[in-house]
């Protein structure tokens, strides 16, 4: 990566409010790697919640705002696969559908794991995280951002998340049965179809817990938030942590 590159940090709305530690870990880690990171403070939301619910048009002003705020950066990096995937995959066609200019973001936005793996090409993370973790392969991370090979496809197996975790001292990595089945979050789905959503979450947690892991880790805090809500209600013995927090542990 060009060391003069300027990175704009994209902290999705719910990460900002519920999981600020994930944003902080992202910032510290990038900083530690000697990267020029900035955070445009006026940012809000990428527009995914309303678009997935069927109101793409309502996300249009947010898309414009997003473009304006991040226009001057070489890369945009955020710790949430689903939000990044939305910007990458959906911003361009929403803009096009409304007869508007080409989307600049699509080619330069990265989920932080993807960025560390593909662009920065980190070789070792400092410190250690001596724990057992079960990797949550979230749908949009896997099937839109290609963080790992989807289990449905018969293509060579890989996992960028597992690659990254292997560069941190002490981490023992597991994966659940049904390795990338959806956890049932799905944004508005979680509320609308709450019965199915919660059932999916419980099933997913059972598979994560069966690995013997202490933590579920993934690149999508939204999935973690949903599973955490169920785990706390059901008093299940498992904790949740974003991949970037593990990588930044000890900083």
């Amino acid at each position: 990566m060009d060391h003069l590159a300027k990175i704009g940090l994209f902290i999705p709305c719910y990460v900002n409010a519920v999981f600020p530690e994930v944003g902080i870990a992202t910032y510290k880690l990038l900083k530690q790697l000697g990267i020029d990171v900035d955070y445009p403070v006026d940012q809000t939301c990428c527009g995914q919640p309303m678009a997935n619910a069927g109101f793409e048009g309502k996300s249009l002003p947010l898309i414009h705002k997003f473009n304006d705020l991040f226009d001057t950066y070489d890369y945009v990096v955020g710790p949430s696969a689903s939000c990044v995937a939305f910007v990458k995959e959906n911003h361009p066609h929403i803009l096009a559908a409304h007869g508007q200019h080409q989307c600049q973001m699509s080619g330069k936005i990265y989920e932080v794991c993807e960025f560390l793996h593909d662009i920065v090409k980190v070789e070792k993370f400092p410190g250690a995280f001596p724990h057992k973790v079960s990797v949550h392969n979230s749908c949009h991370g896997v099937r839109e951002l290609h963080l790992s090979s989807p289990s449905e496809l018969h293509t060579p197996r890989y996992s960028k998340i597992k690659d990254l975790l292997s560069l941190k001292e002490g981490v023992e990595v597991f994966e659940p049965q049904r390795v990338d089945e959806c956890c049932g979050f799905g944004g508005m789905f979680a509320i609308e179809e709450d019965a199915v959503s919660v059932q999916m979450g419980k099933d997913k947690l059972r598979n994560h817990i069966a690995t013997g892991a202490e933590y579920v880790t993934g690149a999508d805090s939204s999935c973690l938030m949903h599973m955490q809500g169920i785990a706390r209600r059901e008093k299940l013995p498992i904790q949740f942590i974003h991949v970037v927090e593990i990588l930044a542990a000890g900083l």
Partner: protein
Amino acid sequence: MKKETHIHAAERFLNNKKNAVWHDETLWQTRAKRDRQAALIPEWEQLRELASKIKMHTITHLDHYLEQFAAAAEKNGATVHWAKDAAEHNAIVLQILQQHQATQLVKSKSMLTEECHLNPFLIEKGVDVVESDLGERILQLMDIPPSHIVMPAIHIQREAVGKLFEEKLNTEKGNADPTYLTRAMRKSLRQKFLASTVAMTGANFGIAETGDVVVCTNEGNADMGTSIAKVHIVSMGIEKVIPSHDALSVFVRLLARSATGQPSTSYTSHYQKPQKEGELHIILVDNGRSSILADKDHIQTLKCIRCGACMNTCPVYRRSGGYSYSYFIPGPIGINLGMLKAPKNYYTNLSACTLCFSCNSVCPVQVDLGNQIYKWRQGLDSIGKANRTKKVMSDGMRMMFKQSGIYHAALKAAPLINLMPRALIYCKADKWGIGRELPQFAKQSFNSWWKKEVLKK
């Protein structure tokens, strides 16, 4: 009649916990079998790609291939009928039956006849309609519709079948042994087969270059029916036509592997000519298909070969069952086909999707099922069927997020009910909290941290 929404039907389905777990696991096993079979074919992904291209090519040249198919079939001695809708289709079937003074029709599995409501139509006219696929026959005796397009009675456990057969076929009390029950059904069906003069099948493929109809089954019931009866009626959707046997070789490698995880179906039967002194009737049915051709957002649904793989992989279908959808075809493909049929009747199925996109990746012909569901959701507002709560929530979110001032004030002050999960909390039913704890808001948002720790320094 107002149909139950998917949301409520799914809730009811999940209330029967044991059954729900069993259903999910059974269908997941089918998906796992499919994975294992597909993994044995190194060129699997290329096959899917090729199959998709062949289908796309065929449906965008449908007039040409249909004419070629019909001409070849007639040259072989078949009679080709064209039905623009379900009513025409059913009338043609009835007419053929009447011409032969047939009072019984033995059928093998066909989702198209289900789509056309053929059975109730014929029964009302006094015809004894006999489904001969084991699963379909069980359902017919129970008087309920299929819950899956390939494994129609997958939701019924063998104990229930045992009970049914005790009553209908006089089997031993309490005997639910699958082999025993299957034999009992075979004996009973054999009488029907022997007495039939007209048999009906669906069609998996119609080959344009040769005019033959290809039917893939596991039980041999289609062949039994069509071998005994002199008259064979094929009910075939116009999108089932493919160019050639070469093309067929691509699809037969994909179909059974995707559907049930078998390398191939037990029988792949080619019907080309009528029997000696018999008749072969092929009814080509449109019933809305040609109008999908003009719909660029949804044309890909016409590639579907009805393998059911998208249902088996769908995490929502597995946990809500086929009957939770109001359209007769459930799962991802059913959500889309229902919307194409009558959006105002079937829009409530659209909630049954997390947009996980697993269906896109299993589909042997690469139908973009999840993307289409996303697109349908965008169109709901314009047909006046948008969910009010969601709309209000989306409006609220837009207002808040568009103006950074409000958002940042929200982030700063009492974050708990001020941010995105505000939508969750204000949602009428507060459904987040039924099975989950609310997210705990941080004492200090990232924004505040940034201002304090980075900007100030």
